[in-house]
């Protein structure tokens, strides 16, 4: 608790929770490399995966930042979230192992030459999302619209759109891993990548 790094993080997070954007950005930039280390050490050894886990961890920290109590040490709080998200990623990977296409590296198809059945599968998947998220995925991933373009009619900032897109893709990829979901297609595999 008296660790100077923890005091600095607590100070940044306190100011961030009061709405200071610069403090929040600084906080996220400082913790990201530390969390990356935690995640890699916990077994997210494949760099590609660990970056996904890191991003999910950052989103989780963002969504659950109200669970930090001022006065509590920050590092154990952060590490706990990172450990949970790492374990969660492994759980999902174990579930996906039954998938015959798992491990097959699928290349990014050119948007112009996409198999029409892919869009059908995608429609079915997108039907499981709320309307706004599905709209954002369609606009940005299928039409290639920018975050600002997509957000304007929705009244969302570009940043908010990007976060919503990231969350929607995470939800889609976890749904693809479930046994009752439609089979994984090359298109969704693409979506998991950055």
């Amino acid at each position: 608790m008296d660790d100077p790094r923890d005091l600095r993080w607590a100070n940044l997070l306190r100011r961030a929770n009061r709405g200071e954007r610069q403090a929040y950005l600084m906080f996220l930039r400082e913790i990201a490399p530390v969390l990356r280390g935690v995640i890699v050490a916990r077994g997210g050894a494949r760099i590609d995966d660990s970056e996904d886990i890191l991003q999910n961890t950052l989103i989780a920290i963002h969504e659950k930042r109200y669970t930090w109590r001022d006065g509590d040490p920050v590092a154990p709080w952060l590490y706990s979230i990172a450990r949970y998200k790492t374990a969660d990623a492994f759980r999902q990977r174990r579930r996906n192992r039954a998938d015959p296409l798992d491990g097959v590296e699928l290349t990014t198809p050119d948007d112009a030459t996409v198999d029409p059945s892919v869009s059908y599968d995608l429609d079915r998947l997108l039907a499981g999302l709320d309307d706004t998220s599905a709209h954002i995925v369609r606009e940005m991933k299928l039409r290639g619209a920018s975050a600002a373009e997509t957000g304007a009619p929705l009244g969302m900032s570009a940043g908010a759109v990007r976060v919503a897109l990231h969350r929607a893709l995470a939800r889609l990829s976890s749904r693809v891993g479930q046994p009752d979901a439609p089979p994984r297609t090359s298109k969704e595999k693409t979506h998991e990548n950055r």
Partner: protein
Amino acid sequence: MRTDDLIAALGAEPSPVRPVPLGRVVLGALAVGGAVTGALFAAFWGVRMDLSAVLFDPFLLAKTLLPLALGVLAVPVGLASIRPGGVTRAAAGLWLVPVVLVGLVAVALWVTPPALWWTSFVGHSIATCLPSIFLLSVPVSAALLAAFRSGAPEHPARAGAAAGLIAAGVSAAIYSVYCTEDSPLFYAAWYTLAMAAVIGASALAGRHLLRW
């Protein structure tokens, strides 16, 4: 998406947040669940007729107070389980309850003639006791699991088990004022079994419901 972009996007969202008082949320859920359980109990079970006559029998007091103590001591454990990095020293106090229970069983074996051990143990209401404690715990554990969802448990199954421990303690304490089995030889075995079932079911529910 690159991580730097994500950070920029997260930082661009308007970000003032009010810390959620998880303690108050959980206690509120406990009160609501406990009230539903109390109402069910009043409607379908009811307090035993001779309660006032046997009120000061230590074995009987223990039948109510031990599960209640377990439930109360489990509250900080449950709270710590839904707060990332949360720690509590209350978990140590929980072990007192089984220790006292074992002591009570020893005393009961001492004062009960060996010929009556078996009848005291089997009692006459196992078939009521087990499902009653389980059913009465459901409103409490459901309310607690719902409240726990606003936390961020690192181990969802463990958090679910903690919710089950609280619920089992409350429901066993309430059921105990209906139950006319007064020997620790009975309740140490069957209450414990029913409560274990509650904890197990709640842990299983937590594993699925408390993902985030």
